[in-house]
């Protein structure tokens, strides 16, 4: 199960809508599996059907996480014409076994989360924590 704050969900959705019709992508860093720090990434492909983190930006972001003892708890990207379900390409690249792969579909307004390990997709429940006040 992915437990995530409403604020972080809103940030993913806003980023996806902003970059629509291109796919948006990024990570949420955190510790002990708790997503905390939102990091939007540039989609180096600038494409409506593909995304790729810029390798140098990724290097800097991963080094920052390392320095802070964080992990990429969530890796998110958007689909802009299809459902929020991992594509074959998503599965072939998925290489963070402990990450929650979050997909948001701007077309269908769907927010879903998956584990992708050794090529196997497993959808998980998303629990959104509403902020008080």
């Amino acid at each position, binding site marked *: 199960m992915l437990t995530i704050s409403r604020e972080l969900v809103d940030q993913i959705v806003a980023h996806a809508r902003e970059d629509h019709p291109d796919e948006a992508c990024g990570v949420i860093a955190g510790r002990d599996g708790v997503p905390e720090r939102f990091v939007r990434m540039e989609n180096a492909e600038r494409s409506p059907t593909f995304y*790729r*983190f810029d390798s*140098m930006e990724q290097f800097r972001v991963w080094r920052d996480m390392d320095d802070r003892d964080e992990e990429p708890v969530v890796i998110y990207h958007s689909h802009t014409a299809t459902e929020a379900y*991992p594509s074959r390409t998503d599965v072939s690249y998925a290489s963070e076994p402990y990450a929650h792969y979050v997909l948001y579909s701007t077309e269908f307004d769907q927010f879903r989360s998956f584990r992708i390990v050794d090529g196997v997709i497993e959808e998980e429940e998303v629990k959104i924590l509403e902020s008080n006040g």
Partner: protein
Amino acid sequence: MAIEVRIPTILRTYTDGAKAVDASGGTLEELIGDLESRHPGLRARLVDEGKLRRFVNVYLNDEDVRFLGGLGTPVADGDTVTVLPAVAGG
């Protein structure tokens, strides 16, 4: 002195869980060969048909080796090589 190689989570099964291992060599290709002799199986995860796999990014200090000389990039004692899985999809 040696070259420190930082290993991503997904490849730590080859390094007994170690986040970083030491290796030596004059080029990245030699370094990967040395890694393979101590951590069998690692090379195939990094290299395919004589080229770096597109699923991984390899950095020498803080440069992507694709912008340097790929597998032929010279490396030296004191350098740090970082391996990260590429994050991409469709």
